């Protein structure tokens, strides 16, 4: 059962030198309660996609086509892109919350952590008393492992990990169905990163929200996600279960990503990486955007754009991508 259905979504950045297609014809489903990993290099469009879904794009970015449908548990659904100002405000945070990349910048520096939970509750739960709100704030902070008396702390008084936990606590304030996490652990050291990942999993078990987890770190996604979508040059090039992607990637780009970091366990493999640099989105190569960097490119790769047919968008082996690439 899907909670979010993205269909043929395209986002352009309108610039003087023509439109930049940051996201092109992306279709994705987010199932209720799952963690969907969204991976790709910088500039692959993953953050833009997330912002489009949350309706946070600002000019010059504009959604040029597609739809985003949000489905409630009771069966009713909502076209997110068609929401008016008032409905959008009600939809935000109650149904879909966002945890931003760097909590240092995502928390208002001049207001306490408690106040930043409080103003969400005050807007969305007008009936709640001041005491109830304070209690809820304390409870949320405790739930993410911050002692309740820290709710009077300002962001600069918290460590990086604590700030990120506080940001997660704010996201949980209204028990949303969907939480978009845009590189929530990128700025943290590995140990804290691990703690936060465990926390996210535990909270997911408890509250049952679905997560769109965005990162460029594929090994991290393998650990936390149920399913993974790989983006390249604004398009989803492969989707699949985390295990399937890990053991038998079908797109040469996914294979490249997997081979670009060492494994700690199992047989030694040669580190390959991906030759070349990400393409210029203003002038994408014709056909499959990855073909200039692809070791397995064929003649038709430079003319024919592979569709995401099933799980992979690759022309190899009649559209099925790589055969078992171990």
């Amino acid at each position, binding site marked *: 059962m899907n909670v979010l259905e993205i269909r043929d979504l395209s986002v352009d950045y309108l610039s003087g030198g023509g439109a930049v297609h940051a996201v092109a014809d992306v279709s994705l489903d987010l199932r209720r309660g799952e963690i969907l990993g969204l991976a790709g290099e910088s500039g692959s469009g993953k953050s833009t996609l997330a912002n489009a879904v949350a309706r946070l794009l600002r*000019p010059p970015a504009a959604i040029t086509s597609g739809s985003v449908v949000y489905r409630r548990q009771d069966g009713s659904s909502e076209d997110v892109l068609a929401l008016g100002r008032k409905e959008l405000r009600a939809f*935000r*945070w109650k149904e879909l*919350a966002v945890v931003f990349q760097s909590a240092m910048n995502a928390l*208002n520096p*001049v*207001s306490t952590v408690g106040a930043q939970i409080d103003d969400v509750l005050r807007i*969305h739960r007008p009936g709640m008393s001041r005491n109830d709100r304070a209690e809820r704030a304390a409870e949320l902070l405790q739930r993410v492992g911050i002692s309740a008396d820290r709710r009077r702390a300002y962001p600069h008084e918290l460590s990086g990990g604590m700030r990120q936990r506080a940001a997660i606590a704010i996201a949980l304030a209204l028990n949303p169905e969907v939480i978009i996490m845009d590189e929530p652990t990128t700025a943290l050291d590995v140990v804290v990163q691990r703690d936060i990942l465990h926390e996210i999993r535990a909270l997911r078990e408890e509250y049952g929200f679905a997560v769109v987890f965005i990162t460029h770190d594929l090994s991290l996604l393998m650990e936390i996600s149920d399913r993974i979508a790989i983006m390249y040059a604004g398009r989803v090039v492969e989707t699949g279960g985390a295990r399937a992607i890990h053991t038998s990637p079908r797109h040469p780009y996914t294979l490249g990503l997997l081979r670009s970091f060492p494994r700690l366990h199992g047989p030694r493999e040669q580190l390959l990486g991906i030759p070349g640099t990400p393409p210029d989105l203003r002038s994408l190569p014709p056909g499959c955007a990855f073909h200039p960097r692809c070791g397995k490119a064929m003649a038709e790769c430079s003319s024919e754009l592979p569709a995401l047919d099933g799980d992979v968008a690759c022309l190899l082996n009649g559209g099925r991508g790589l055969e078992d690439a171990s």
Partner: protein
Amino acid sequence: MRFLARRLGFYLLTAWAAVTLNFLIPRLMPGDPVELLVARLKGNVDPAAIDAMRRAFGISDAGLWQQYVDYLGNLAHGELGRSITFFPTEVSTVIADSLPWTVGLVGVATLISYLVGTALGVLMAWKRGTWLDGVLPAATFMHAVPYFWVALALVFVFGVTLQWFPVSRAYGLDVMPGFTGEFAGSVLYHAALPAVTIVVASMADRILGMRNVMVTTLGEDYVVMAEAKGLTSRRVMWAYAARNAILPNITSFALSLGFVVGGSVLTEIVFSYPGIGSMLLKGVENEDFPLMQGIFLVISLAVLVANFLADLAYVVLDPRTRQESE
């Protein structure tokens, strides 16, 4: 608190330095007020009269150190010597008579200019890309226009041609000074044009300064997150964006408050307003050293007080400065 104590100590030290320089500079210069008076009278002065005048002006042949101690003692009693222009009126009386006019006119006008300019800057940043951007070239133009030109233009149009407003003095000759409605009305009526001059000529700086910082702040993650939280636009604009954007503007506001006491010399001259600025001009014209000295002292102390107030405001408005103070 230690932060404030340290700042206070710094300002006291600076004030002492200002007072001492104020004492030293005239004494290092050749000539004294009595010599000037004598020269003006072409030397036809009785030596006994010269001696009497020297005593009246407090000029002595005592050692510099003794003079300095006397000077500090006089200062403690508010004695700044006698003005030459308004002989035998004391400088402190001249300043006390003109200061309220300047503080009333320039102070209120600066406050209005700051409040309206800041609000406009916030709005223009918030609504950038709309018709409000059309105000920008006008603001840049006003930013470049000098005070006295605005004053002259206003006098010409509204004072001389249309005769809507009086063009000189602080109140009408036909009203008695006192706490009456008639007098207050006359004061407001006379203050209108000079106040408009100051507001018009200084507001552009406020608009541009606030707008620039605000545009940067609007790109911050915490503003995007506030929007994602479903808060009302008004709350996002003021409590998140403007609240942070105003911090860098506090110093410039405090400085302009300090210079309020110096008066808007050119504005006061154009409108023959009996404020400190006009007094300063008269002092310069008549080589009235005691008066100039007194006015400079008041100005430097006012700037110091304004700076201290800015420090206080920072501590109240920015929790990050409070941490350093612990």
